């Protein structure tokens, strides 16, 4: 039975860059624990002799020749969705001190 701690939730929140209120942390302890418990049923399946499934398509070596592709739109059209530009740069919060 997986019971997550307060700290587990805070760590998950930090990895997901989410800030949670104390009530939210409390409620996620139960919600996420119950999801984990549900998924834990899979552990009952015998998988000792099986290769892990990484892909379900059955495809291999899907590759393209090394050529520059014109996708038929202007680069600047993509930049329009950027919240804040600074000259041609994407402006973001300061990353280092």
């Amino acid at each position, binding site marked *: 039975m997986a019971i997550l701690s307060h700290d587990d939730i805070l760590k998950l929140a930090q990895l997901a*860059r989410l800030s949670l209120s104390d009530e939210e942390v409390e409620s996620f302890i139960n919600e996420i624990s119950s999801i984990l418990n549900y998924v834990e049923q899979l552990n009952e399946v015998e998988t000792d002799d099986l290769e892990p499934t990484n892909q379900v398509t059955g495809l291999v070596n899907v590759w393209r020749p090394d050529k520059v592709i014109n996708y038929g739109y202007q680069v600047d059209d993509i930049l329009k969705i950027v919240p804040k530009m600074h000259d041609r*740069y994407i402006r973001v*919060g300061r990353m*280092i001190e």
Partner: protein
Amino acid sequence: MPKIEYILTVGIETHVQLKTKSKLFSGSDNDSKDSVANTLINHIDFGLPGALPVLNEKAIELASKAAFALNSKPSYFSKFDRKHYFYPDLPMGYQISQYDQPIIVGGYVEFYCNDQLRRVNITRAHLESDAGKSIHPDNQNYSLVDLNRAGTPLLEIVSEPEMHSPEEAKAYAHELYLLMRYADVSEANLYYGNMRFDVNVSISKDNQLGTRTETKNLNSFRSIERAITYEMNRQIDLIESGQQVIQETRGWNDTKGQGYSMRSKENADDYRYMPDPDLPPILLDDQYILKIQQSMPKLPKYWRQQVSKHSLSTSIIESLIEAEIEYSLNNLDYLVNLPTNQARVIANWLVNIELPLRKKLAESAKNIELSDKNIQQIYNQVYSIFESGEISSTNIKLLISQLLTMKKLPKDVKEVAKESKLLQTSDEGLLNDIVDQVLANNPQAVKDLKEGKDKAIGFLVGQVMKGSKGQANPTIVTTLIKSKIG
């Protein structure tokens, strides 16, 4: 305080930018050097919802070549995984990398450090896409991101922690540079960040490894050596003062010559690796691998072996190997096929006359205009003049420097030497006058010589050589002086 000997242990992760025209998973132009910010991007690099990455075939070919350069083989099976972390230069929220089944497993690199042959084992090397580039303007509360580099194919080469001095780490990194250039896998231009190094450093008093730190993003061989030396001393100071080394990621300020703490290292599972469902795995067969093997260019190891039959010094050989790629020359093959005596002399000219000249010219953005073939013809002709004893070593340098800066190959090298008065003269009439003059001007040396102080003869011969502007043949001058003083 008693001096305690610490053992330094270093492992290096090297990011090598692969020489492809387009990016690893998108058709954007991969040549981002000197490009205008955010012009070489598309919906895939930008991580827009629904964008499908498609692998660049050339990246697999280059990584396979790198495998052979690292004395390994490309894996039959490899796959791509998502490595999750949030950072403003990573639009997708994850980096496409290879986690447990990389394209290269095992291998080693051999190189010389202080004339000693060293071998460092390679743990693995995996393909991954690069992140964007960030700029942090001074005194501002924001950073700026350019995504032109996002999606550039990188091969991350991970060494075993087997290096034990800053010099050795530097020599390893330099050898990787040579290998990537010789194998034609990367432009390996350090100035443009085509190779970046993360160094893992720890110290200990015994064979038990100490806590390590990782100094990231070093971009020159010199900074590798300096950053490791700095980090080693920092760790020793901590331990000597009773403190502990904390496992952390560090940065390096090359201008200040100082490392600095960045953040505590996240545990590996914090990246939440998972197989990338968009990218089917790579399956290489023997035929593909053999074809790559057969297409491999000759590597430094081959040339070292070949050239060693002329018993050249390690430093001469290494200079030649470096110059070969630095200036796109074909001298190694030429030297290998020369008789040993000639090869040794010409190798010396190459390293001590031609290379400094090239370096000097490059400083003023100039170049030697003659082709390798022409330069080799010049060397062969200068060598026969040298063999006949008609030229002094000082004048050989002058002659070669003069010839190499010519616009085209002269008809007759000896004629050029004659015109520039660089050949030694055995014209005794002319020499007589100079010798008489020198003897008259240096009565003390003449006295010394008469008293049996043989050292004086060297001085007098030197004066005559100077008086003749190097054209005198020293053997004849010596005979002349002896006969006059008798």
